[in-house]
């Protein structure tokens, strides 16, 4: 038994799960908070999707 009373391989799976879920947080904090890189807010005003307008045989 190792940390938290479970075998090492199982503990590593728990640790890996925590790391997997935290990757976004780590990236956001390091890149956008600590390094100050701005987020590119390029959301379109109007989602002017150009499709066939309901006509399937384009």
């Amino acid at each position, binding site marked *: 038994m190792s940390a938290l009373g479970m075998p090492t391989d199982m503990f590593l799976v728990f640790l890996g799960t925590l790391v997997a879920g935290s990757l*976004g947080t780590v990236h956001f904090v390091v890149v956008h908070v600590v390094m100050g890189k701005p987020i590119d807010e390029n959301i379109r005003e109007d989602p002017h999707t150009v499709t066939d307008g309901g006509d*399937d045989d384009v």
Partner: protein
Amino acid sequence: MSDLGAVALQMGAGGDVNPFYLGTFVVYLVLVLAIGAWGYRKTDDVSDFWVYGKELGPTLATWSYVANFVSAVSVIGFIGSVYGNGYSVVTGIIFGLMLGVSGLYFVVHKVRELNHVTFPDLIAELTGYEMARPITGTVLLANAWVYLIMQLVGAGLLVTVITGVPYEYMIWVIGGVFILYTVMGGLVSVAWTDLIQGTLMVGTVAVALGYMAIDLGGVASINQQFATLESAYVAPLGGGTYTALGVVASIIAFFGTIFTSQSTIVRINATDSIRTAKIHLAAGGLILSVFYIMLVMLGAGTTVGLSEAGLAVDNVDRAFPVLITEYVPTTIGTVIIVAILSGILSTTDTRLHACGVTVSRDIYDYFTDGEAGDRKLMRVSRVSTVVLGIAATGAAVNPPGTIIGLYNWRAILLTSALLIPVYVTLYARDTAGKGVLLSIVLGATLGPGWQALGEPMGVPATFVGVSMAILGLGVGHYAWEGGREASAGAAVSDD
């Protein structure tokens, strides 16, 4: 009748009504309805109803995401799974889900910048074909409806055990209340109830784990006793629950569901900025990974506690409800019940809402050639929410499978059909639209189809579905390359 249905009815037949638990449940339902009525007054147009007017801020978006994420599968299915098979659920399901949340964080700007409402909107643009709406909408509707059944079954099982009110009655009470408030307030009421339910749920699961840890001598002691009961409980593959191939397939399937859920895409498009879209996934991933670690440890505590008290259960889905009613004091049990109901019902409303949006915007609007006005679309959203909600409640009376079984089925469907064609095309915008549609159809039919055949030769259904989607995309792109002109030039960013 399915095993689960038989168990549900059996549970409902012999229970005594507990006034504390029943009172808690009634107060909870009244509060939820009040928020629905408030949301109705705040909903001015179809944009409010579908995507909160695209004004969701970081806090509301994060907790709404967390609350939507934690479902009947989490609180009853996962604890039941730990009770039956130990911690292998972390390896096979939770790891893939958490990796998916972080993965979506890194690509979410590509979705949000296109500024659509639903997933089929996005796919219609990527393919250049309006036909993509009903095709994708049908896949998403199947997923949302099955998810809805799962939630209603979980809620019904739980509330039946804790209140003593028979399952066949309770399921209609739960279904009715949630249909009513979702229909009234749309995403406005869904988001605000999610905020309350999400924070409540995470906090109270921590309290419940704390209680069990104190009662059983600490977390390390719980794990040691858990391993003593069965050494396979603390083995990453569950001592045979998963094969190496099976666990990889399962991780891919659940990783993919994060990218391909209609409710997730709708919520991303409801955020007020790309920054908020990123924050809600970054913070949500952290909160959820901590939450799930606590939850599975609570599952181990439940297993140890029930074993010590001689309260073994035959159906694993009953483990946690029995712990609440038979093991912990009523006051603690009441707190835990509020948390669990919050988890289940906040997911139920979101899926119900997603069903209505999918029918009206992605299917009805296509077949009326986009001529329906906003008021008409909102009415179709509401009517379809009611109809699909009632149908799901009816199906939940005698459910078609176990909660985890249904959960796996829709993961295979979503990931097989949508993960590869959509996200490859999001980055490779010159992919042939017909190739994308071929890929979606092949993945949607062959993934779940292979599973229905019992996964011949031991090949996991996810592998078959995803492989066929890749093949369809490659062959389709080669066959129809150069035939698209509709969505060219629609790309916004090139990173």
